[in-house]
């Protein structure tokens, strides 16, 4: 769903945004007697660029983090590939395009050793689950609530799975 409400463009706002400043006085005079608000009362809304969805960006980043951990510790390939694939499914559900998914690059872990690197992933999954839960709670669209609840649950389930991997690493 769109994150920003569209501001209706009125004839007056369009005119005001396109005329040179020197012509403002003339336009103000020309509006006298009409039932429209005076020109100085009109706030011109700057066009906001479409903001990428915070949850989608986080999913793409999570995939990169898992790919980076696999590159650093190939022995984690099995488990982390499965989890990364789940994040791809989440990202697709949140509207990721194939181009966005193809463009993901591995994010190397900060830790040089495997257990702390897994700890980083656990912390990221926990933060992701919290963000999805908050977003689900704040959404006004029932289908979005349902999808984000599923994703929040999935990401919560990655925590014990990764802890198990860390215990045995």
């Amino acid at each position, binding site marked *: 769903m769109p994150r920003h409400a569209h501001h209706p463009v009125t004839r007056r706002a369009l005119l005001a945004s396109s005329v040179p400043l020197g012509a403002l006085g003339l336009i103000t005079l020309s509006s006298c007697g009409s039932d429209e608000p005076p020109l100085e009362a009109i706030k011109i809304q700057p066009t906001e660029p479409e903001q990428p969805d915070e949850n989608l960006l986080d999913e793409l980043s999570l995939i990169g983090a898992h790919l980076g951990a696999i590159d650093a510790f190939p022995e984690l390939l099995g488990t982390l590939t*499965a989890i990364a694939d789940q994040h791809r499914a989440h990202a697709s559900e949140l509207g990721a395009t194939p181009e966005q998914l193809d463009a993901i690059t591995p994010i190397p872990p900060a830790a040089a050793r495997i257990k702390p690197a897994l700890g980083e992933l656990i912390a990221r999954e926990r933060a992701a689950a919290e963000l999805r*839960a908050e977003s689900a*709670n704040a959404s006004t669209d029932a289908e979005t609530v349902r999808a984000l609840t599923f*994703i929040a*649950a*999935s990401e*919560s389930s990655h925590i*014990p799975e990764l802890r198990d991997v860390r215990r045995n690493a």
Partner: protein
Amino acid sequence: MTYSDAAAIAAITQAIETEQSFVYAAGIAGAYLTGGAKRQAVSQLAEHQGRMQIYSLMIAPEAVPAPPPAFEPTTPITDARSARTALAQLNNALVGINADVAATTEGEDRAFAINCAQLSARAAVQWGAQSQAFPT
């Protein structure tokens, strides 16, 4: 809040019925488990009884489903392995059930349902299931 919307009542009723099944299953499973697993089953039994009570407060008393006279697990629970499998399956099923409640409720009730979905997905993995993108 007491919901009168048909979709919310249906989702909450379904949640109560599934929680009733979970409580029965945890009781049976507990008999086959030992040590930490048994304690976990008992702890979850109490947690899910609490969920039933909270969900029961979200709808009119006459809409709250009565516990079934008997419980038939979808897969027989005959040993520790099947006990774990049954609890994992029921927990995963509860994710979607709670997602439906979240989608039809609001405020603290929705937050509660989301939290229940998260706890159930984690519990399913702890009982031996693989994580899923959309747990079922």
